[in-house]
């Protein structure tokens, strides 16, 4: 399938009356792998939350698979079920009595209330397959709270792959991993992207990984400073502009307000 999977048009978000995001516009083509980069506090996680419909904003600024995202995050169930999200971390206590296979099974059902035993056999087979594909086959009966950081990230990918989806959003999913684990995670992500045909939007601080693996980069610091290929956007000059909050302020205001 081709076409635009995600379109964001002039998106602004206010927090306590202060603009956190201003006039952000971009679109993601099907099967593209896009990185969202920028300094801490640039609004990357806010943008992700807005795109997922988790923040109040004006309607019609975001379109997913051709459907406008409502002001309260409403989307048709058929569209909502096409979105997968990998958070930075989970609120796991020292002991959280949820087995890995159970967690991955929660990703299998489409949105809405249902009996826990609905389509039990289908879910069990899908979970088993998802765990195998993410090299977690031996982790099914372990508790989520017993996993290492790298294992937990792979399980989160199993949660995404347990059912076909089109848009995958990762919010600093590799944070807290050591270098080899990051490489393994990225390798697995690319492998699954190839198989599943996911369109990816990933927030990342690792510019080397972004340079090697992504085909589009969005440089954000409250507004979109620049976007394009990694070679174009991640040059030293561009990076110094992105990570300096005042560098492009004048030209942006000029652009916005004529």
């Amino acid at each position, binding site marked *: 399938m081709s076409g635009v999977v995600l379109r964001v048009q002039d998106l602004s978000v206010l927090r306590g009356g202060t603009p956190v995001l201003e006039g952000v516009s971009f679109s993601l083509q099907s099967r593209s792998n896009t990185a969202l980069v920028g300094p801490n506090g640039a609004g990357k996680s806010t943008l992700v939350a807005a795109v997922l419909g988790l923040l109040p904003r004006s309607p019609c600024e975001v379109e997913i698979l051709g459907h406008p995202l409502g002001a309260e995050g409403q989307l048709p169930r058929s569209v909502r079920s096409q979105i997968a999200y990998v958070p930075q971390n989970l609120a796991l206590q020292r002991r959280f009595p949820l*087995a890995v296979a159970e967690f991955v099974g929660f990703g299998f059902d489409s949105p809405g209330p249902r009996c826990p035993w609905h389509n039990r056999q289908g879910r069990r087979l899908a979970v088993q397959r998802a765990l195998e594909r993410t090299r977690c086959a031996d982790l099914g009966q372990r508790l989520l709270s017993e996993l290492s950081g790298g294992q937990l990230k792979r399980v989160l990918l199993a949660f995404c792959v347990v059912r076909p989806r089109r848009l995958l959003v990762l919010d600093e999913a590799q944070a807290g991993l050591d270098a080899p684990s990051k490489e393994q995670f990225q390798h697995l992500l690319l492998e699954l992207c190839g198989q599943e045909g996911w369109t990816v939007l990933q927030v990342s601080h690792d510019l080397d990984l972004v340079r090697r693996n992504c085909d589009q980069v969005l440089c954000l610091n409250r507004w979109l400073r620049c976007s394009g290929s990694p070679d174009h956007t991640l040059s030293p000059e561009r990076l110094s502009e992105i990570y300096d909050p005042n560098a492009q302020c004048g030209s942006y205001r000029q652009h916005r307000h004529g």
Partner: protein
Amino acid sequence: MPNVGPTGSTAMADPGLLGEPFMQRALLGGLLTGALGGLLGSFAVLRQLSFFSDALGHSALLGITLGILLGINPTVVLIPFAAMIAILVNQLVKYSALPTDALLNIVYSSSLAAAVLALSLVETYRGGIQQLLFGDILGISWRDLGVIGALLVGALAYLALSLRAQVLLTLNNNLAGSMGVRTGWRQLAFITLLAVVVAVSIKAVGVLLISAFVVIPASTGCLLSRSFPLYVLNSALLGGSCALVGLLASGLTNLPSGPSVVMVQFLGFLAALI
């Protein structure tokens, strides 16, 4: 009528007392209240709402006092009052910059103080402050049992049908939202349900011990379970069975009922910990 002590104790050294209707109602009430506390507690503990149930319990005293002052059945006042306090606390936590535990402390200590001041205006209260603080499970009526039973069935159905949403919400708000869970409404619905459960259980358990019914069986269940549905089931079963054992022990030893149940819960927790 049984010889009820100041803190819900009963002179029940005679095992024949088990055949008395009031004792049977008490045992059934303990079983249902314990199971309800364990069921809701299984989610409350993982969402770090343990202190919230404590605050609700203490605030409930103000609701009871208002009922007494207005001449209305305190139980009728208590349910909407507890739900209102829960919604108020939820909004305070959401919009205030202060830490949650500090806010909860402010709410519960000030409502407790207001309740004690208001109670001092009441010349005579038939039940007495001891009964409010420690509960009176022996005074439980068939109507109370009906309400608790209906609430248990309702809570069980709601949590079973929304199990995925509840677990995802517990793990990560954004993850739940991305899966189409209306996170704000779900959170509000859960704490309102918790508030209603606390309000309904106060008569049997008392203001001071209600949080133990929510927290201890669920914590024990957490230590013993390696599957989420099993954890919820274990918490409810532990809650119910500890209440039953505690009440029987209380009857046989002539000790106060509420504290006896909590001690049985605590012993169960210690056993699971070891």
